[in-house]
């Protein structure tokens, strides 16, 4: 696949050209944080962002989504999808890899999701090599960064005054044709390799994945879980900010007066008490300890366990660090792994 080197002051023009074809969503500053939000120009984006409050999965699995409307007399109507092509600009390697993991569930899994497939298809991805990982990042340990190996349409790497732009798909080629820039030289590729090496030297958090499935399965009764359960607020922030959590709940909402209603689905979270509640108030994970163990275990361990094969043996976690950054109780899954290893 081809590439181009784009001067930083030409990026605005590139984005402006892209905006004629796509609705663009990019990292925008919000208070002390950032969110992926619709933007109309490069100036509205902050490509030096650390991470976003919600992960990009919100574009593919909306936080709340109508499945269909119904009438009490039997009529059912599915919502029409009118959205045109969109583009996520500046997605980091961790979040891009998270989408590739979600693909395993919603495209290649036992029950593919047509709405997820439609949204993935119509959404172009301009990825960004991470040159300045934050203090909570550990994508390198998870093999998901700081620069993605694929899955993008265009990959940008900051070379100082210019961006190296590499295309990863036919759509990416077409997009790059809109950019003004010069040809890629060996020195540019070397610059990229250096930027990646430099980024790797900045990681403060690491996870040792060796035998991690067995580690978790061997430690189901480790006292560490009880201790975490006492600290854990069960606020759901870790799950809702996770780029690969994919659980949802399905509910019916009746109109008033009761002639019809909607069936909708919305994000759900295993750390919440209601998540594993069944009829008559039974609950498989009544204790917070069991729930935080489920969240951390599903993210790092039991990828190879028979009941959690959706990621084909890979860890669910991509090391984006959001659950650490946003946890009010200061729970850090990289520290939990160390504790389990007795380090």
């Amino acid at each position, binding site marked *: 696949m081809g590439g181009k080197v784009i001067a930083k002051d030409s990026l605005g023009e590139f984005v402006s050209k892209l905006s004629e074809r796509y609705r663009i969503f990019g990292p925008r500053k*919000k*208070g*002390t*944080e950032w*969110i992926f939000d619709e933007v109309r120009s490069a100036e509205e984006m902050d490509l030096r962002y650390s991470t976003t*409050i*919600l992960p990009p999965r919100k574009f593919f699995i909306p*936080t*709340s989504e109508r499945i269909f409307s119904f009438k009490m007399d039997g009529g059912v109507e599915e919502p029409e999808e009118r959205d045109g092509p969109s583009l996520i600009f500046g997605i980091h390697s961790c979040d891009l890899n998270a989408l590739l993991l979600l693909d395993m569930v919603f495209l290649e899994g036992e029950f593919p999701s047509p709405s997820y497939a439609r949204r993935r298809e119509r959404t172009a991805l301009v990825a960004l090599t991470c040159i300045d990982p934050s203090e909570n990042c550990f994508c390198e340990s998870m093999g998901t960064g700081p620069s993605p190996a694929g899955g993008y349409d265009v990959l940008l790497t900051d070379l100082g005054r210019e961006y190296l732009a590499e295309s990863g798909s036919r759509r990416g080629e077409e997009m790059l044709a809109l950019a003004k820039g010069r040809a890629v030289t060996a020195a540019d590729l070397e610059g990229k390799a250096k930027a990646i090496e430099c980024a790797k030297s900045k990681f403060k958090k690491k996870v040792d994945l060796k035998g991690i499935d067995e580690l978790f399965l061997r430690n189901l009764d480790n006292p560490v879980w009880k201790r975490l359960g*006492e*600290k*854990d*607020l*069960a*606020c*759901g*922030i870790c799950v*809702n*900010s996770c780029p690969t959590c994919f659980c949802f709940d399905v*509910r019916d909402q*009746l109109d*008033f*007066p*009761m002639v019809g209603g909607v069936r909708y689905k919305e*994000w759900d*979270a295993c750390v*919440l*008490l*209601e998540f594993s509640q069944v009829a008559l108030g039974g609950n498989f994970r009544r204790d*917070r300890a069991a729930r935080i163990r489920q969240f951390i275990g599903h993210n790092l361990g039991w990828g190879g366990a028979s009941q959690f094969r959706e990621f084909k043996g890979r860890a669910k976690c991509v090391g984006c660090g959001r659950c650490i*950054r*946003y*946890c*009010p*109780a200061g729970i850090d899954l990289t520290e939990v792994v160390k504790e389990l290893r007795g380090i």
Partner: protein
Amino acid sequence: MAKPKLAVVKMTGCAGCQMEVLRIEDKLLDLVGAVDVAYFYMATSANRHGPYDVALVEGSVSTPRELRELKELRERTKLLIALGDCACSGCLPSIVNWVPPQESAKVYERFLEIHSKKESFQRVYPLSAHVRVDLELRGCPPHRDAILEALKGALLGIKPFLREHPVCVECKLKENVCLLVCEGRPCMGPVTAAGCGAACPSNGRVCEGCYGPMSDANASSLAEILAKRCGLSREDLIGKFRKYAGLTPAFSKEASGGI
């Protein structure tokens, strides 16, 4: 078939919860079409005594007369719904339970002459301390959607879906900047039941905790975090946990100073 009879009744409270029933606005006429509003002092002067199919009861119980009325109402009502925090957990009126009478006298100059005080109980409790309550609609006031959901449930005979998970869920899904984690402000969101749509944090104000404890509130952990991260004193913490739901089992320890 006769329309179900609805009563909206007030005990000790600010009347804000009944106001919220009127705020259903666009659905109000549908509601009036579906039920027979038999008793609703704020809305009509044609009030009738029971029996009622559904009663929304606002306020906590602070006088013998209220207690008598509540017990009678319970006998005449099929489905008794506690409307708002005062009715569910005591809310602001219940703060009196921790305050010695001489403290109140400092605020009100002629304390003993206050009419309601003369005949009132020393302690204020929610409805469930006195009668069986079929459903609790929490919040100060409860969200209009929750009121509608409860009425729908009552009319259809199905269990209404009310949020029990924390405010943090609604707040995060709105992509608000976390006031507690990012700004170090004392937010009650992690222990407070959702349903308000994270109204305060979405407007840059910390959650005050007005929906009371969420389904699995870890009050002691949050109290520790608020003390460490936000520098709250023991008195501050007592105030936070006592304000709306200090009588609930989930908050009672922190509302009494951790003892």
